[in-house]
């Protein structure tokens, strides 16, 4: 019964989304206030309907209602409660329901917090958002209905993929979807602005917080996925350039570019049509990502059960929305003239370079991701494009980006003297040089990646600190009182530096040892005495485990006891490795227990991963930087005051 209510509200949500996508649009065109007022109501109701639908599905999972096919295929009575709940989105149908729920949440948020928007703009934004909802709710109802019943309910379910039964991965999809779908707001604003034919500083100011929020969630989502891969897959890799990872990375790159170009629109009324294009492309890549994950065109470790029918449906959605938006763009963009005038050496130029580099980096990832498909269709060659290609083709753009970043963050708008900015960055350059020399000395004979990465990281961190210092006029007491946007910028840029250091050092200085260890025997790995103390069999709620006890002692120092496990989930008939990790600021100790060997002993792998946590700490700091910016006073003020005021006039250049 409850499942039927969920099914019913899902259909109702489709009807409401249809209303939301048509009535306010007509109202905005004809300037009928009553029709425009339908938008916020429909958006709110649509969200409520989808929330009920989602709650109904969650109820089915929690109560293990195996008469629902989806629950039978993805759950089990023995599964811990946490994973019964997260199992709701651990499958294609449920995750799509979460997708549209978040879509409706963003639409409803625009209705709730968009009071300050001009009525027509808000009506159009809600209409575009509603039409995306129509497409995806129809997609669920026609190809991926989660509420289908089984005629004869089985006794127990088939269990969730054990790899997904993990806290890191349980919350990875919701964050990722918040990011993906959050970009739909930027898209809706862009299309609404194209319909209206007007993009100005006020528009950029409204778009930016939504993009910032989506970007934050995307950053956290990607970091969670990467962290999960690190501890779950059993050898400590953190990024694989898998098509699906790329699918989340491309929108991130474009959202990052969009954040920066929107600043130029907001402050200087330039780069308008480019910003609108970026907003369209960022969401287009979210849709492409959805297509890649759910169509199975490109094989990937993540792919859900694939179905060509679903792929074609998503491709159609992609064609209609992106094609439509780009056509509208082609027709309207030339009318958006830039106002700001600036010299070649200026912050505007730096941000243009930032955008070029980020967009090209996203393009490289895109070409690499679809190349196997293109090569097979067009040239009849069956080939692979893997990590070695991306590392070679992508990295140079980020190195360039890191080089110009501190400079761009510090030089003034309009016209700048490069010498002055360079001089004020001298301490950062010295810091970078000193760190690189240190890394060189410590890791003699090891990859050059370490000193280079550390130098770039130090340059970014030093640059972020000097940015705050300069902005406060060199007075400590004023640093704390700087606007939060300044702190946000410094935190995000510094976080990137921390991630750079983490990636470089972990990849360059990783220590690995694979061997057969006998019980009680000790061996040495990178300055640690490692002993396999014992191996025992343990029973978990829905798995059986081989659990080892391994002691690692540093010469004359700390002792760490680790319990790596090897699990088997009988219902899903799948083994998993659970590495044991001792997290540290400067190193992670990472041990994995393998199979028992003929002639006694166990396969044991020991890794020492220097600075591993810096990778994700940097990502979290970047996201916090976004949060700081988001809480900046000007957004709170802008949200509070109902203003349809004209944009600030462009300042004359000198």
């Amino acid at each position: 019964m409850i499942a039927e209510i969920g099914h019913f509200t899902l259909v109702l949500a489709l009807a409401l989304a249809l209303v939301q996508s048509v009535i306010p649009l007509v109202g905005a065109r004809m300037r009928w206030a009553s029709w425009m007022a339908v938008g916020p109501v429909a958006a709110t109701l649509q969200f409520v309907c989808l929330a009920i639908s989602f709650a109904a599905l969650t109820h089915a999972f929690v109560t293990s209602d195996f008469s629902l096919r989806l629950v039978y295929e993805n759950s089990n009575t023995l599964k811990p409660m946490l994973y019964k709940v997260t199992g709701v989105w651990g499958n294609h149908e449920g995750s799509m329901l979460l997708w549209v729920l978040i879509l409706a949440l963003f639409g409803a948020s625009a209705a709730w917090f968009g009071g300050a928007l001009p009525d027509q703009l808000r009506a159009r934004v809600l209409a575009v958002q509603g039409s995306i909802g129509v497409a995806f709710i129809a997609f669920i109802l026609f190809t991926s209905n989660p509420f289908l019943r089984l005629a004869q309910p089985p006794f127990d379910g088939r269990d969730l993929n054990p790899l997904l039964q993990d806290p890191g991965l349980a919350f990875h999809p919701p964050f990722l979807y918040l990011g993906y779908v959050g970009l739909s707001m930027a898209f809706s604003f862009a299309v609404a602005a194209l319909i209206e034919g007007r993009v100005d500083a006020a528009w950029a100011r409204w778009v930016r917080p939504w993009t910032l929020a989506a970007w934050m969630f995307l950053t956290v989502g990607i970091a969670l996925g990467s962290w999960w891969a690190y501890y779950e897959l059993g050898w400590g890799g953190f990024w694989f350039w898998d098509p699906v990872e790329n699918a989340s990375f491309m929108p991130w790159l474009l959202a990052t570019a969009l954040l920066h170009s929107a600043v130029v629109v907001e402050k200087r009324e330039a780069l308008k049509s480019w910003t609108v294009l970026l907003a369209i492309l960022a969401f287009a890549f979210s849709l492409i990502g959805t297509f890649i994950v759910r169509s199975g065109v490109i094989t990937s470790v993540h792919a859900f059960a694939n179905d060509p029918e679903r792929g074609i449906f998503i491709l159609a959605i992609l064609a209609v929305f992106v094609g439509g938006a780009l056509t509208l763009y082609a027709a309207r963009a030339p009318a958006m003239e830039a106002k700001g005038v600036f010299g070649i050496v200026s912050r505007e130029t730096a941000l243009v370079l930032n955008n070029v580099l980020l967009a090209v980096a996203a393009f490289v990832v895109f070409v690499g991701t679809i190349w196997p498909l293109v090569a097979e269709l067009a040239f009849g060659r069956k080939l692979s494009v893997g990590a070695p290609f991306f590392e070679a083709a992508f990295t140079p753009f980020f190195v360039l980006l890191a080089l110009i970043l501190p400079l761009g963050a510090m030089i003034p708008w309009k016209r700048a003297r490069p010498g002055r900015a360079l001089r004020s960055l001298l301490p950062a350059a010295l810091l970078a040089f000193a760190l690189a020399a240190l890394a060189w000395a410590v890791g003699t004979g090891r990859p050059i990646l370490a000193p280079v990465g550390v130098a770039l990281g130090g340059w970014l961190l030093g640059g972020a600190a000097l940015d705050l210092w300069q902005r406060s006029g060199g007075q400590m007491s004023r640093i704390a009182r700087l606007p939060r946007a300044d702190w946000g910028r410094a935190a995000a840029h510094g976080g990137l530096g921390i991630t750079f250091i983490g990636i470089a050092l972990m990849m360059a200085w990783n220590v690995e040892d694979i061997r057969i260890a006998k019980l009680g025997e000790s061996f040495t790995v990178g300055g640690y005495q490692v002993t396999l103390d014992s191996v025992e069999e343990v029973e978990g709620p829905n798995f059986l485990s081989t659990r080892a006890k391994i002691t690692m002692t540093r010469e004359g120092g700390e002792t760490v006891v680790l319990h790596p496990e090897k699990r088997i989930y009988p219902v899903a008939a799948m083994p998993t490795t659970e590495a044991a990790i001792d997290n540290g600021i400067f190193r992670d100790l990472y041990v994995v227990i393998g199979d028992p060997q003929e002639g006694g002993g166990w396969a044991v792998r020991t890794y020492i991963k220097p600075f591993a946590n810096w990778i994700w700490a940097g990502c979290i700091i970047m996201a916090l930087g976004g949060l700081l910016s988001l809480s900046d006073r000007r957004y709170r003020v802008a949200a509070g005051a109902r203003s349809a005021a004209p944009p600030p006039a462009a300042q004359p250049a000198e």
Partner: protein
Amino acid sequence: MRWLAAPLLALMLLSATPSLSVQPDEILADPALEARARGISAGLRCLVCRNENIDESNAGLARDLRLLVRERLVAGDSDDAVVAYVVDRYGEYVLLNPTTSGANLILWIAGPAALLVGLGGAALYLRRRQNAPEAGVAPLSDDEAKRLAEILKS
């Protein structure tokens, strides 16, 4: 559950399911040769897996390929010869790093070419912005004028 445990554990222990990538028994005694084997393995795709190299994969086929690579190395092949040997048997698909031959040139050139186009476009835009006449302030639209009047009144 408990009744399941004993037979299952026995099964686990006996079948010794390959649950790890490189196994201790695969490792070559010569560290230099082993390092080369690892380097080559990182660039070869496990054919039955999804986007995993054979060095990281748990599949049986990946193990066979790892052993094959080591066999060739011990036989005295150069790195390139080993890769060529595997490509001859399994096709271009095993290479995670695509070659630069033929149409693949497009793939490799795409990035640098896009950068040049991007920089060219940016340069044109910046030149135009630098020399653009200062745009005048647009007059208020009727709506805006009305709104301004309202604000000033209140």
